[in-house]
C-alpha cells in the first residue's frame, strides 16, 4: 500500500478514532507479520500462534505510532512485532533440555488428549493415546512426562501492557473463594496465586471439577490445566511454608 494511503488511515485512526481505519492497516500489514512469524517457524510453536502474537505487536505499533516522526509504519512496526514474538518464546520455554522429537510428540499427544477426551467422554488411557498417534506406550509416557518441563505463558498476562488482566467468568469462583475464612491457611495460599491460577485451583479443589471439565470451562487444554495445577500447588506450598516460618 502506498505510504500516502497508509498515512491517511493512520490519521483517521490516531486523530479521529476511526477503528475501521486501524483494522484496514492491520489487514494490509498482515503479510509483513506472516513473513516475520515464518522466520521463527519450526522452533516448537505453531506458526499460526506466532502470527497471532505478531498481529498483537502490530496493533500495539499502530496504537503507539507518532505521525510527526515521519517514518514508515512498516519500519516502525517491525521491532514491536518481533519483540512480541520473542516475548512469546521467552514466556513459553522448556525448563530443561528436551529433544525436539519429544517436544513434537508431546504437542501431538496434548492435542490428541483433548480430541479423545471429547470423543470418548472421559480421559484417554496411555494405550489409547499411543495408538492414536502411532507410537508405543513407553514413547508416549516419555513425551507426556517431558511435557511437564514446559512452562506455559501466564494466562493472566494481559495482551496489552496498558490493559489490566481480566478473566471472564471469574466472579462465580471469586464468591467461592471469598467464602473461605479470611486469614485461613488455604486462603493465604490462594492469595499467592495469579487470578487465573486461583480460578483453576478453586474449580478443582473447592468445586471438585475434573481436569477435563476445567479445561472445557476455561477453554484451555487438559495438559495446560495439569501444568497450572502443579505450578499453583508449588506456589501455595511456598506461601504456606513462609507463613509457618513467620508464625
Amino acid at each position, binding site marked *: 500500500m502506498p505510504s500516502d494511503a497508509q498515512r491517511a488511515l493512520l490519521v483517521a485512526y490516531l486523530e479521529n478514532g476511526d477503528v475501521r481505519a486501524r483494522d484496514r492497516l492491520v489487514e494490509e500489514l498482515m503479510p509483513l507479520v506472516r513473513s516475520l512469524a515464518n522466520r521463527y517457524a519450526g522452533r516448537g510453536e505453531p506458526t499460526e500462534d506466532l502470527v497471532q502474537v505478531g498481529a498483537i505487536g502490530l496493533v500495539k505499533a499502530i496504537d503507539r505510532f507518532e505521525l510527526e516522526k515521519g517514518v514508515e509504519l512498516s519500519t516502525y512496526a517491525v521491532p514491536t512485532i518481533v519483540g512480541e514474538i520473542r516475548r512469546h518464546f521467552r514466556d513459553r520455554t522448556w525448563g530443561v533440555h528436551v529433544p525436539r522429537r519429544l517436544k513434537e510428540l508431546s504437542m501431538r499427544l496434548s492435542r490428541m488428549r483433548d480430541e479423545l477426551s471429547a470423543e470418548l467422554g472421559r480421559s484417554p488411557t*496411555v*494405550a489409547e493415546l499411543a495408538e492414536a498417534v502411532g507410537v508405543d506406550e513407553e514413547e508416549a509416557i516419555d513425551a507426556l512426562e517431558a511435557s511437564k518441563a514446559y512452562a506455559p505463558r501466564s494466562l493472566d498476562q494481559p495482551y496489552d501492557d496498558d490493559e489490566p488482566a481480566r478473566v471472564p467468568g471469574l466472579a462465580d469462583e471469586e464468591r467461592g473463594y471469598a467464602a473461605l475464612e479470611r486469614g485461613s491457611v488455604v486462603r493465604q495460599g490462594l492469595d499467592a496465586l495469579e487470578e487465573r491460577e486461583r480460578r483453576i485451583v478453586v474449580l478443582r479443589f473447592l468445586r471438585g471439577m*475434573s481436569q477435563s471439565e476445567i479445561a472445557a470451562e476455561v477453554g484451555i487444554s*487438559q495438559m495446560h490445566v*495439569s501444568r497450572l495445577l502443579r505450578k499453583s500447588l508449588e506456589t501455595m506450598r511456598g506461601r504456606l511454608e513462609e507463613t509457618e516460618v513467620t508464625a
Partner: protein
Amino acid sequence: MTDVVSISVPAAPGWTGVVELVLAGLGARLDLPYDRIDELQLATTAVLEDAVGPDVRVDASARADSVDIRVGPLGAAAADPARRRVLDALADRVAVEPGEEGDTWAVLTFARGGAR
C-alpha cells in the same frame, strides 16, 4: 492378587520426576485414564515434599479396583489439615498412619476409574 511396585529415592526435589515416571508406567500398565495418572502423580509428589529423609519410599499396590500409594517416612506436616484438603480432592481416600519405627506414613487410595 496384589501387584506391588516399590521405589526408594533420596528425599530431595530432583528425584520427584523419577517417582512420577514410575507412577506413569504403573498407571499405563493398569490402563488408567491419563488424567487419573496425572492426579496420582500430583498427590504423590505433594506428599513427597513432607519426606524427612534421607530417603523416601513409595510403595504402589495395584488391586482389582484401586491403587494404594504408601509414602514415608514423613514429617508431622503430613497431617496438616490444609495439606489434607488438597489431597482429599485428588485421592479417593487419604490416611496418615504410624510406621513401624514410630515415623509417619501417608496412604493414598485411588479408585481405578476416571478422575474424580
